[in-house]
């Protein structure tokens, strides 16, 4: 038989586990709650339009016609454009900061690049409207005529449009991709590079060996950036032109899923209109959920792999605190 004091202690400990576990459960409940509520509030639109909603291009609230394809198009176009610009830069930064920069420069440079993530989205938007858009307009005005014949560069030089949105998104995404990619590279055991050097590799070849070792994690970092770009709202809506029309042109004013919600939510005067906007929110939620889950799994799998392959290298990925423990 256990002594009364020790049995009280184990009851206390069980209560502690249940009590704190309840609060941890709230985090899970929150995500479940978001999913449930978005689904509940978009039923009207789902029932009325079904899959048609995502295949049609007419967005006419006055006539009660809601087709969301232009927003999907705009979100994918702007995010992929941003990724195309940001990925090489972000990886360059990650390589420079983890492999090349002098030790004294690493911390301040890392801090500065990560500061890009701290600037509020509204500030990016404000800067976008008054500084970036006029610059892009100048660029568009001076585009030679033969280039304008291509669909990619067609249309009047407005300044606002896909190009401005892609550029500003790229800047906003860089710090997310680069900081995770840097952590991944840091976690690659030094033996990988040393082995490459021992075989007579140049610096770049040794870096390639490290990149290859951490490739799943790097892919995770890029996908994380994609998730950020897809969900970004304010800066995009302020520079993209908010025009629900599908166009291949970088110069054309377009629209995104997040932007249409931000713009039209308070104007939605019918239940169907509101429901259609919430359905766009639901799909945005599901897409970012999948993308974030995927990127987390990729990043985690790298640190697990490193832990398994090189236990002595004490793989510490700070985004991954339980490995450190």
């Amino acid at each position: 038989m256990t002594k009364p004091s020790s049995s009280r202690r184990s009851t206390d400990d069980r209560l502690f586990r249940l009590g704190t576990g309840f609060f941890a459960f709230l985090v899970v409940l929150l995500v479940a709650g978001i999913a449930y509520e978005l689904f509940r509030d978009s039923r009207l639109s789902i029932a009325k339009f079904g899959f048609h909603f995502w295949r049609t291009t007419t967005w006419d609230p006055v006539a009660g016609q809601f087709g969301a394809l232009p927003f999907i198009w705009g979100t994918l176009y702007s995010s992929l454009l941003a990724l195309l610009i940001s990925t090489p830069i972000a990886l360059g930064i990650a390589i420079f900061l983890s492999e090349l920069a002098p030790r004294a420069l690493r911390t301040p440079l890392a801090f500065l690049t990560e500061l890009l993530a701290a600037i509020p989205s509204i500030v990016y938007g404000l800067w976008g409207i008054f500084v970036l858009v006029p610059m892009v307009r100048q660029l568009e005005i001076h585009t030679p005529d033969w280039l304008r014949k291509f669909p990619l560069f067609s249309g009047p030089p407005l300044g606002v449009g896909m190009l401005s949105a892609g550029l500003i998104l790229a800047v906003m995404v860089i710090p997310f991709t680069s900081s995770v990619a840097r952590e991944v590279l840091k976690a690659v055991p030094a033996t990988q590079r040393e082995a490459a050097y021992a075989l007579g590799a140049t610096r770049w070849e040794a870096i390639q060996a490290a990149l290859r070792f951490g490739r799943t994690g790097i892919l995770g970092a890029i996908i994380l950036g994609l998730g950020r770009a897809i969900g970004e709202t304010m800066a995009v809506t302020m520079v993209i032109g908010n025009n629900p029309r599908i166009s291949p042109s970088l110069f054309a004013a377009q629209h995104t899923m997040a932007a249409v919600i931000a713009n039209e939510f308070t104007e939605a005067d019918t239940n169907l209109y509101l429901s259609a906007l919430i359905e766009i929110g639901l799909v945005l939620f599901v897409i970012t959920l999948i993308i974030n889950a995927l990127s987390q799994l990729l990043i985690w799998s790298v640190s697990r792999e490193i832990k398994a392959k090189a236990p002595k290298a004490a793989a510490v990925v700070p985004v991954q605190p339980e490995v450190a423990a």
Partner: protein
Amino acid sequence: MSQHSRRRALSNVVVSLCGLAVVLALIPLVLIFIYVIKQGFSSLNWDFFTKMPKPVGEPGGGMANAMLGTLWLITIAAFFAIPVGIIAGVYLSEYRGSRFASLVRFTADVLNGVPSIVIGIFAYGLAVLPVHRFSALAGGLALGFMMIPIITRTTEELLNLVPPTMREGALALGATRARAAFGVMVPAALPGIMTGILVALARIAGETAPLLFTSFNNRYFTTRLDQPIASLTVQVYTYAISPYDDWHRQAWAGALVLVAFVFVFSVLARVVTRRLERMHRG
């Protein structure tokens, strides 16, 4: 030999391109800072901090209501997000090996990546739709939901930095796990946790999207939870897309206040985190 020098040349090119990437990323950062400081400072004056907005078309006035509104909104958010986040973080750190902890950790990271506009819709459905009125409560809820995963993960990471011998010592002296966690571990990690909270507050203070249709906007200031309330970010947005020069000026001033706020907290967090790391590594 020539192949070797070609390989060396390629290596040097790539190395310099990587350096160039850092410069490319710092250009927009510097440009944004220059514009915000230049445009913001020239528009910043005493009225900006003390006056309410003037009616459309009348020059002058300030954003006193919006700044108070932002402070009030983050207070509401902090009120419920800090306890939930800290206690959830304690669970993750105390039972770090459990499967449920992995699930929560994963969910928190995923939640952190959910677009803020989606969180806004959630808060709208929770607190605006049932009563058909925009409110400070709805805005505060949206911001709080965004804070919870940040605080949870920060608390967990900082608790993991505390040497396990401290917990073991407490347990050996007969403390319950609750006593060891809340009486020993959390106080030891408190400076770091507080910094994490400040960073989270600074971050959500810069959020606009989830407030557009929850707390909405208000030309006056009220502390009532069931009334719409202004915020610095929504006010900057409204002014930025308006056609008035005077409002554009004020939008820049608002942006400067936001950036200064975020910058100060980021630097502070950096300093404290580094000191803590050095302390724990000995």
